């Protein structure tokens, strides 16, 4: 059931409409049902018993990126996204999940099946993808632009505890998330290299599971509960300075969503809160250090895309920019609408490929206008979406930490020290 507190939220909406201008989905579709205030109206009617939660209502609830722009821009302080998430959970009981999601979530919930699937996925990935593909695309992303899985999962490339070869300056848990572990191992290698250079001991808990966010944002909160409890146990087990995430989405889950879900499901939220306090995005953690002495030059121009789960869910905006600006010779250029959603929205781009592409195209144009050859962004979802829709081979999408690692390698290379 939707909590009393969230139920009251619907009465805060005075329909001023400021959310509509902020909503990337409304800005594509231009009808109220696609807008936040329209959805709030429908949720209100459902809660009042004046509207049967229909298939159409269900579809409208999922015609939403959960980018949180509406919540941030609501002068009445209505937490539209939380209301949407809670309502999705309500509807999941009635409508269940589509089979593709059921299958994928089944994998994400299992600590054995997921590695197994990923192992075979490396070989059979392209063939499997083509099963889902329509017109050469999976969702809004052309098959050819979907990266290949890591040959070995990141966690298997390192021991569980990676100690620095100089005096220890700190000790952190690194929650790698599925994307870094299975898809973008260079991001993980970069995190480990940069932290190592700073003398930080890194623990990668072997038994960490998917953060569960794709599962519970689809409404399947019960299904995600095991992942949540399991991760909270593992993350609380070690006494560390911080719990580091390199993925905006995992960060949002660990910092905020876990607590909300536990509260709203009537579970004890305290373990969630205890962990949430310690979680830092890698950019937040690194911003505490003076990195300049470790950095060498990188040629080129970089722009930064704010992931929704970082800039809005976690209010991290300045740190990644500051880190990028530290890199010698790398020119930092702000793009227009850097904090606008890229249109990926996790599974949104699978459900609404055309709509997603429309939103992504705006982002691509903004990137192109900067003349940058690098787009930095700390979210694998954004990375897939932006890379997938970039037509230019001259622009590369990277995680900010990859640039930092590269810059450190430059600094340490013999050429630099000549």
């Amino acid at each position, binding site marked *: 059931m939707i909590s009393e507190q969230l139920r009251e939220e619907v009465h*805060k909406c*005075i329909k001023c*409409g*400021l959310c509509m201008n902020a909503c990337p989905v409304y800005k594509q579709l231009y009808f109220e049902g696609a807008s936040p205030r329209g959805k709030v*109206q*429908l949720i209100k009617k459902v809660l009042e018993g004046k509207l049967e939660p229909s298939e159409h209502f269900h579809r409208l609830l999922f015609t939403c990126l959960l980018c949180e722009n509406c919540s941030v821009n609501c002068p*009445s302080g209505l937490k539209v996204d939380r209301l949407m998430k809670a309502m999705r959970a309500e509807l999941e009981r009635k409508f269940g999940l589509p089979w593709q999601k059921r299958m994928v979530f089944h994998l994400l919930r299992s600590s054995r099946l997921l590695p197994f699937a990923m192992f075979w996925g490396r070989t059979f990935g392209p063939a499997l993808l083509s099963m889902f593909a329509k017109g050469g695309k999976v969702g809004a992303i052309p098959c050819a632009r979907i990266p290949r899985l890591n040959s070995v999962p990141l966690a298997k490339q390192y021991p569980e505890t990676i100690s620095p070869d100089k005096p220890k300056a700190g000790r952190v848990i690194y929650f790698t998330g599925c994307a870094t572990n299975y898809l973008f191992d260079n991001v993980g290698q970069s995190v480990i290299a940069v932290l190592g250079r700073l003398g930080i001991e890194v623990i990668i808990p072997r038994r960490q599971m998917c953060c569960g966010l794709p599962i519970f944002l689809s409404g399947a909160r019960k299904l995600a509960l095991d992942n949540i409890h399991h991760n909270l146990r593992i993350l609380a087990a070690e006494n560390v300075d911080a719990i580091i995430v390199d993925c905006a989405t995992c960060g949002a889950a660990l910092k905020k969503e876990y607590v909300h879900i536990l509260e709203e499901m009537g579970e004890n939220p305290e373990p969630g809160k205890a962990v949430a306090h310690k979680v830092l995005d890698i950019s937040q953690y690194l911003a505490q250090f003076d990195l300049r002495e470790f950095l060498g030059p990188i040629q080129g121009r970089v722009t930064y895309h704010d992931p929704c789960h970082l800039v809005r869910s976690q209010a991290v905006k300045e740190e990644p920019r500051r880190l990028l600006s530290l890199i010698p010779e790398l020119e930092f250029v702000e793009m227009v609408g850097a904090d606008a959603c890229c249109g990926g929205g996790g599974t949104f781009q699978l459900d609404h490929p055309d709509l997603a592409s429309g939103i992504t195209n705006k982002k691509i144009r903004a990137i192109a206008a900067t003349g940058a050859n690098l787009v930095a962004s700390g979210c694998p979802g954004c990375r897939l979406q932006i890379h997938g829709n970039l037509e230019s081979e001259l622009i590369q999408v990277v995680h900010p930490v990859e640039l930092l690692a590269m810059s450190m390698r430059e600094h340490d290379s013999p050429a630099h020290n000549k």
Partner: protein
Amino acid sequence: MLKENVLQQFVSIVGPERCKTTKEDLLTYAYDAYAYEFLPDAVLFPKSSEEVSAIMQTASAHNVFVTPRGAGSGLGSEALAKQGGVVLCFTMMNRILEINRANRYAVVEPGVVIAEFQKEVEQHNLFYPPDPGSAAVATMGGAVAMNAGGMRGVKYGVTRDYLLGLEIVLPSGEIMTTGTITTKDVTGYDLTRLICGSEGTLAVVTKIFVRLLPKPQTKRTLQAVYDKIDAAGTTVSKIIEAGIVPATLELMDKTIIKALEDFAHLGLPLDAEAILLMDVDGDPDTVEKQAATVAGFCREQGAREVRVSESEKENEQLWAARRSAFGAVARMRPNCMIEDATVPVSYLTSAIKKVLEIAERNNVLIAVLAHAGDGNLHPLILCDQRDSDEMARVEKSMDEIVDYALSVGGTLSGEHGIGITKSKYLPKQLSETSLRMMRNIRKLFDPQGILNPGSFLEDRQS
């Protein structure tokens, strides 16, 4: 209810995607930014004048009610289907058709969002001044239908002052144009300005020709902080009396200040009784001089502090916060009824006092916001619609505010329009003759009475 065959005709005009009839869709077109809900029978989204014309022909032939709508940010149910029928929603007809620098005009479709249009013309170093608080949402078509005003009214006037001409579709389906693209035009009756502010009762606007100004070279925002709201009101009258014309001149009382600070965290002074937020614009020399003069005036009248903004970003933050006032204040109570009675500017101080007195006497929470420079009050009445006793007191307060405004030569509504919320007051301001003339004009345009029925001109009872 719409007959199935009529609905089919509408579908054949706009296609199934742009004709919405599910309960979910209708519920999301039942509201605007005010308090009441009316369910339409269908929502149509035309994309061209021809489609609008065909829709109106069909509606005429079958006597279907049609209510035009922009973004639905209105404050008096003007764009709601008060007696059912079709809502004609223009959000998908939203292209900027031309920006002509040589002759300084632009042509837009009605669904263009005001703020986006402003941003676009500013790229060409031009300026479209009408600037309602809802500009980030509201459409140009809605602004024309309501003759929207806003914060720059004191210097630049309102929507009406920027209209060169219109393309309209009559209820019969005929397409006609009014006005020209020249700034001077005395050929025939000024139908452009008749349509403007007609609240969708005469014709449907399908194209808008607006006059543009050169973009002011620079702008400075001043923020004067007062311990006494009277002093703020008096400052405004003095500034206007002295012949200084700021581009904006906004007043907010302590309730508004607190609500904005809670939302935007700008460091507004929470212990102040009022703030005046002002823009001066023009060429850099004049702006410097004017800013100094205005600041001097404020201090003379007892402002405890006058802050001059340092950057464009700071300007923007302050104004973005001001734009959020309506919603931000609404945090405090479930509902927020916004008034817009307007008085001659020399009465501003007494009007503010009167409003506060009315609030206290009726035991109602009222926050005062005002486009002070043109005497346009925005008392925000905070209440809970679920409490009928409270609502009776709210209603009484509104009656009294209106009576006061009229008693000093003011008007029922400065910029929000009459809609259904103020129609009961209409005879207080307009004579029988005046109302009869208006009703006759309406009959001439819309003999069947299919366009926006239940609007301000009709008695609610009948």
